[in-house]
């Protein structure tokens, strides 16, 4: 049975996941420098141990209501090919093993489905898997 690991995290009550091979680290929220004239979901750039890394707010990207950051707020630092990107989420929950056969496609969902790779089912939990490549596209400037 083929399986892979994901980093699971939450936006409100919903659970999402990213393939762990794309995740470099998970950081606490820190000083963010706003970048003028960037898309609204780009919160700015942070100093990640000497590397200037852009961060986006996943809530804004997925058209959720924005909430204030709390002590649980985390930045998931992801990397795909040459692009490094921090993604702000409400809280991280787990690292999970997902069997490939337990993934359904996400077409049944409405909204911004282009960002969704599929829905993973795990002991009654439903986790939306994100498509990082799509997330990293900056189309709506």
């Amino acid at each position, binding site marked *: 049975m083929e399986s892979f690991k994901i980093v699971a995290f939450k936006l409100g009550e919903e659970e999402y996941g990213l393939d762990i091979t794309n995740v470099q680290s998970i950081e606490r929220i820190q000083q963010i*420098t706003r970048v003028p004239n960037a898309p609204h979901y780009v919160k700015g750039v942070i100093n990640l141990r000497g590397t200037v890394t852009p961060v986006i707010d996943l809530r804004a990207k997925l058209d959720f209501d924005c909430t204030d950051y709390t002590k649980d707020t985390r930045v998931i630092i992801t990397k795909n090919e040459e692009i490094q*990107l921090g993604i702000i989420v409400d809280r991280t929950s787990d690292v999970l093993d997902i069997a490939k056969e337990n993934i359904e496609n996400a077409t049944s969902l409405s909204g911004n489905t282009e960002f969704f790779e599929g829905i993973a089912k795990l002991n009654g939990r439903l986790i939306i898997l994100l498509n990082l490549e799509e997330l990293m596209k900056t189309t709506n400037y």
Partner: protein
Amino acid sequence: MEYNDFLEMFIEESKDHLQNINDELLKLEADPDNTSIVNEIFRSAHTLKGMAATMGFEDLASLTHDMENVLDLLRNSKLTITSEIMDIIFTCVDFIEKMVTNIEQGGNGKENVTDIVFQLKKIQDPSLAMNLENQAINETAATAQLVMDEFQLSVINEAIKFGNHAYQISVTLDEQCVMKAVRAYMVFQVLEELGEVLQTNPPVEQIEEEGFNDTFSILLLSPQEAQDIQKQLLNVSEVKQVLVVEQGNQQGKIDEEVLVKEVEKADPTPKQNGNEESDSSKKKPRSKSIRVDIDKLDQLMNLFSELIIDRGRLEQIAQNTHLNELTETVEHMTRISTNLQELILNMRMVPVEQVFNRFPRMIRDLAKELNKKIELIIEGAETELDRTVIDEIGDPLVHLIRNALDHGLETTKDRIECGKPEEGKVVLKAYHSGNHVFIEVKDDGKGINREKVLSKGIERGVVTLEDSQNLTDSQVYSLLFSSGFSTADKISDISGRGVGLDVVKTKIESLGGAISVDSTLGQGSIFQIQLPLSLSIIYAMLIKVANETYAIPFNSIVEITNVARDEVVTLHGQKVIQFREQVVPLIYLQEVFHVPSAPNETEVQELFIVIVRKGDKTVGLVVDSVLGQQEVVLKSLGSYLTNLYAISGATILGNGEVALIIDSNQFIN
């Protein structure tokens, strides 16, 4: 080490050797009788061949091998250098360069070299070209007995006069020996210390490829006694038997008449060759250095800037706690880290020579092509620049030099008519000044014709007829840099595609530099490039807009001033001030960057204005306060955020915060 690591080393070293060969070939062309130069070239070519064969690039190895054969003839004075031979060798080097580039780009280094190989063979032996195939058969059929030709006999004869002996040595290796080529190589090493190897059977290449059965023979010239040689050779392990037979005396007498002639030709004698060889190797002490991946230096710089941030924090803690010991330690740390920073920055600096030394060769070829006589003078090749700048500066310089040769310098005929020296002069000069490095390309050609530039400019719509009357000379010359401009009446291969100079300008500006041109009609023109010392560290002015900090690079700032609010007037909807007799449009950073206002902001009566310039246009950037100047480490925003308006990058401040760097050029259009 992985194959790839070797490959990288191979490519780097091959380039070094090729550069060396090119340099020496140029020297040789100027001084064809100097055999020590041929020796130098031969050495480089030989190493290159060895490396290529080890890495399995057969084509490269075999081409180099053929070139080496020709060089061998040259250094033994069996051939005299003619300009055809030089051209063929140059072409050959070009081919090798192509192959190496191909390998670097992931290819297999294959090129169609039959033609050049044929030409090389033809040099070696005009008649041999006909029966190439037969030759191969002959070689394998050759017996172990060394057959000496007249030339070798003459060399032997000559050497004997100098107190040398000629020995025919036959070395037999142990049958159990696994790596025969290595043993043979060791034997050769010993022999080369003892004297000079004239000939081997089978040929050296074949021996290196283990193409022999246990035994091979060598013809050696040496001042040593036969027993000594035998003893030394037997010291090499796995050598079973060594036979040393003195030659020469009896055979040397064969045909005196022929020999005398040959000896004359063979001058300078091999013995002198040997001395020169050791002389030149003494002259070039190899500096001790290692190659470091530039990425590693970047990483080092990154780590270091983190250290600086921590140092800043420690300074703050020391101040707050009033601990003397801590303060002292932090002060010491500050001193050390300043030195460390200098060192790290220095490591990235390389002499501009790396770019310059490809030009002599280029000029030679271009001069031939254009049928002009050109002398290239290089000054200040030791001037150092950041490696990143070095990598980028090559193409613009090539362009400028081609321009100078093609458009700048007159034809030889015209030059003579003008009463100028027949040989045109191009000066390539680099020097430091302040925080910049200047590179100049100067020619003593016909200079830039103002009227010609203007009429072309009007024709191309770069400038209007009315404007053209009032332009200063330097403004006219700067038209050359506008796109779609070429003054050459004839479009030639070398330049004049009309894309030249504006591309050069864009490139230089992208490096944070500037380019200008000056010229005197009839006496020549001079292109001057100004470059920042380093791309990774820049001087910047830190400014604040509401609560946000930005950095403005120093090189674009003209002046910082403050004006009363009522001095600002509105012209055609654009806010402007009058400053030093000039109308300067204002740009409110808070507006263009949509900076949220600080809560307790009060209406101020004075505005801080940073006046920035691009070319001869200026604008004033309105800021809230000026924090001061600082050296900042330039960082990219990464590939996620691209094409941001008026932001060129970011830097990390002492407190760990990220500040964005303003690209003020984009405010000026």
